[in-house]
């Protein structure tokens, strides 16, 4: 008799508890920060927003974000189009646009500095061999200029835009393009009149994410922008937390505009994606643009891979093999000394295992939690309130720079009721928070595209909901889950902004060790460490590919 109610209440209770836990984890640190910023008559706000240069800082933040967003959107879209047009023989090239995320952003930025520093940059030195530049003794490119910071930041965001746009392109059936072609549109016409308008949701979504990442961009401005005194909100936050005495209140205040924009973007994406029916193109065959395949596409993708991946990696690799950073390359100077030293340095190898362990632990928790949230949002439409809250909360971390969570966690977990400081747990918790959006979104997308029929078929076969999720839903989500795992693993093993705040001195991850080398040691060691990180990440991805097949990266 009570069957209906009991069952309802059980699921309500379960999801309610889940949402409360996530709410505590995600909202609490932000709350703590804001409390701090508003303490003593909002002294934090006053100290941060009373600065004479705050206007300039905000302008730079927005300018950098928008300019690099534009670059990323154009490149990401073109790449997505190009990869869909790769000749069959070189189809493997389509993983190239996502590969740059395997390289830590610090390595990427430092790599570019090695290549394009106006004096000893290898590429600059090469270019100065050219007749029309041979009179220069520095340049021609100045990587420390804001133009180049924007370009490099834009390159960094391109992979993310690509991920969203190419996923969107997969959903456009080829018949929609052929229809345009046979109506008399040239290939260019098809791209502008049909492909781009149909991509609007992906562009809006990917653009939103890239905008947030651009606003939260930290590495480029900090490492390259010193020269011209470039200040953005994140570097300001960093400054406030690295001056003495540390001014957390001001850092929290500096984060506020980002928090607000983040929430706005997340909400507006939710709103825009709610009306997506007009962009869904149903129909069997997947995207294969009209007009056949082109070697120009292969050339373009290859060129991008060379510029965005090979060049900076090469820069880093050369430096890691040199005894010191120098524009004069010669083979006999190359040495493995840096690697030897790195291995000898205490903590480095522990940091590798800490990174891997904490990342895996976070991923292992994120996957089921993400599945539960995805199921709640997609399949439990009757729990209106809970599911809306869950949806917004889990999207939130995407909108906030990791540094914010780092500081917030430091403040939250060094006080009762949960004193976790100094344990790996606090790192794992931050990682969970940072990755929840990815775990949730990716599984949500997969669940939506899987539809209800598979689980309904299981229910009418006599399987209870639990059996259904174990035997049907999870196995069918395997590719999506593996892709999510790969992406989260990549992002987490590179993480340093949040880790920096919550690590204890004896619990280091790779990102923080690299950061320490960067701020205390030598660039050659930084380079070696960056190579090590890339190798660890690549190994992780390789394992995921072994388990999940070659298309793990495609499914991103």
């Amino acid at each position, binding site marked *: 008799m009570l069957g*209906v109610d009991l069952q309802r209440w059980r699921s309500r209770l379960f999801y309610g508890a889940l949402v409360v836990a996530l709410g505590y984890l995600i909202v609490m640190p932000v709350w703590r920060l804001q409390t701090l910023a508003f303490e003593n008559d909002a002294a934090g706000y006053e100290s941060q927003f009373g600065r004479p240069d705050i206007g300039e800082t905000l302008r730079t933040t927005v300018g950098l974000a928008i300019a690099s967003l534009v670059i990323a959107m154009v490149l990401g879209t073109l790449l997505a189009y190009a990869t869909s047009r790769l000749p069959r023989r070189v189809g493997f090239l389509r993983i190239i646009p996502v590969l740059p995320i395997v390289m830590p952003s610090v390595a990427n930025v430092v790599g570019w500095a090695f290549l394009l520093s106006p004096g000893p940059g290898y590429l600059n030195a090469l270019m100065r061999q050219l007749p029309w530049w041979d009179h220069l003794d520095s340049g021609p490119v100045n990587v420390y200029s804001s133009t180049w910071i924007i370009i490099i930041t834009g390159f960094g965001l391109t992979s993310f835009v690509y991920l969203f746009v190419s996923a969107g392109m997969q959903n456009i059936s080829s018949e929609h393009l052929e229809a345009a072609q046979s109506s008399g549109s040239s290939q260019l016409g098809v791209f502008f009149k049909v492909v781009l308008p149909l991509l609007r949701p992906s562009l809006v979504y990917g653009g939103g994410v890239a905008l947030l990442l651009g606003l939260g961009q930290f590495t480029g401005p900090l490492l390259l922008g010193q020269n011209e005194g470039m200040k953005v909100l994140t570097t300001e936050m960093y400054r406030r937390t690295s001056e003495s005495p540390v001014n957390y209140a001001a850092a929290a205040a500096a984060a506020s505009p980002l928090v607000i924009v983040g929430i706005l973007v997340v909400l507006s994406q939710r709103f825009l994606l709610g009306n997506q029916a007009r962009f869904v193109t149903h129909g069997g065959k997947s995207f294969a643009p009209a007009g056949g395949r082109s070697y120009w596409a292969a050339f373009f993708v290859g060129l991008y891979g060379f510029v965005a991946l090979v060049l900076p990696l090469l820069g880093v690799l050369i430096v890691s093999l040199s005894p010191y950073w120098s524009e004069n390359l010669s083979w006999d100077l190359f040495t493995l000394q840096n690697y030897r030293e790195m291995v000898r340095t205490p903590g480095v190898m522990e940091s590798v295992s800490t990174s891997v362990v904490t990342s895996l632990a976070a991923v292992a928790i994120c996957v089921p939690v993400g599945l539960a949230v995805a199921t709640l949002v997609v399949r439990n439409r009757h729990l209106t309130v809970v599911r809306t809250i869950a949806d917004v909360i889990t999207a939130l971390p995407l909108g906030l720079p990791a540094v914010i969570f780092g500081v917030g966690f430091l403040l939250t977990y060094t006080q009762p009721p949960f004193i976790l400081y100094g344990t790996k747990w606090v790192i794992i918790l931050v990682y969970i928070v940072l990755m929840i959006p990815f775990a949730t979104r990716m599984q949500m997308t997969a669940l939506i595209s899987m539809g209800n*029929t598979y689980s*309904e*078929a299981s*229910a009418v076969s006599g*399987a*209870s909901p639990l059996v259904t999720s174990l035997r049907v839903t999870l196995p*069918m989500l395997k590719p999506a889950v593996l892709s999510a795992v790969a992406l989260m693993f990549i992002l987490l093993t590179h993480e340093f902004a949040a880790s920096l705040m919550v690590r204890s001195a004896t619990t280091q991850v790779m990102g923080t060790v690299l950061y320490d080398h960067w701020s205390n040691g030598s660039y050659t060691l930084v380079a070696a460490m960056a190579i090590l990180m890339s190798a660890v990440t690549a190994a992780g991805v390789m394992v995921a590919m072994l388990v999940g097949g070659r298309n793990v990266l495609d499914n991103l």
Partner: protein
Amino acid sequence: MMASFRISGLSKSYGSNVIVDDLDLEIDEGEFLVLLGPSGCGKTTTLRCLAGLETPEAGRIEFKGQAVYDSSARLNVPAHKRSIGMVFQSYALWPNMTVRRNIAYPLKVRKMKDAIAAGRVEETAEMVHCGHLLDRYPSQLSGGQQQRIALARGLSARPDLVLFDEPLSNLDARLRDQVRTEIHRLHESLGFGAVFVTHDQSEAFALGDKLAIMRAGTIEQLGTPDDVYNNPATDYVADFIGMSNRLELRRSATGWQTGDGVDVLVHRDLPDAEAVVARIWPEDVQLHRGNEPLPPHAVALSASLLSSEFGGRHYDVTVAAGSEEFRLRADAATHGSWLRSSTAGEPVAISFRPDQMQVYPLGEVAVDRPLVAAS
């Protein structure tokens, strides 16, 4: 025979849209019931309420005398505890399991180990002629094979009631015929109760022991295929099952006549109606070349040829008679040669026997037969 499955007073809405509206339906043991209706009339929703995949707002559903849903008692047995099988339009085979595991799944989750050991999986696969496909994955099968496996999966646990939601509409013409015959035979040999949703009338006629024609959440007519075919209850039913020729008649001094003034003999008593609509099957309409003599005692209308489509032993011909269009089947042997060389606009005549008409009061009102009672 006692009704084995009984739906009474079932209602279900989405928001303010009432989708299923106080619906009553009974399915006898081993009976094959076809739910026929246009898109959006609530067929799938009714089926899903039966399966327990959707929770209705009101009503009662009984399986073999036991309530599985009862709004007054707040009872709702979940889908996995009802003894049903279901076959989906999109097959919904689990792509990560082999055919064998797909078919064995309902047995496994219902802990029917004995049946598995006794070779039920192989037996069921054999029944749908797919015994040789057991170790393939669904993606390695053609559409027809996939739908057969879905059938086997729905039947392997020998449920009391099997629900079909347009299982044939994703198949192409030839396969559709094959799988349809397959379902027919399996039903005869296993004798399960079945509810089969479709909006293809020829499928409905071919398969059903009984037909329920739905309209906007209620049942408009329930009867045997023969009954429905020969005596559609309402104009709506007649139209929906393909009795597509329609002729409006007005009362004249002597009886009834068409808009063009042709007298028509109506065999029914229609005391109050001023205007009626007559329905005639395309098969019942005769085609005559312009100069042919017309049969006596038949309703004859002069018309002009619109188009004709070859159909093997017959032609599907469309003609315009007055303001109405008529579709009819013309025998290829008799009419083939001139039809092939004729052009649109050619004058022809059509005729049909008055007793082949079904007559309904004009307007979209659902009525009971005999029409007299409805007036």
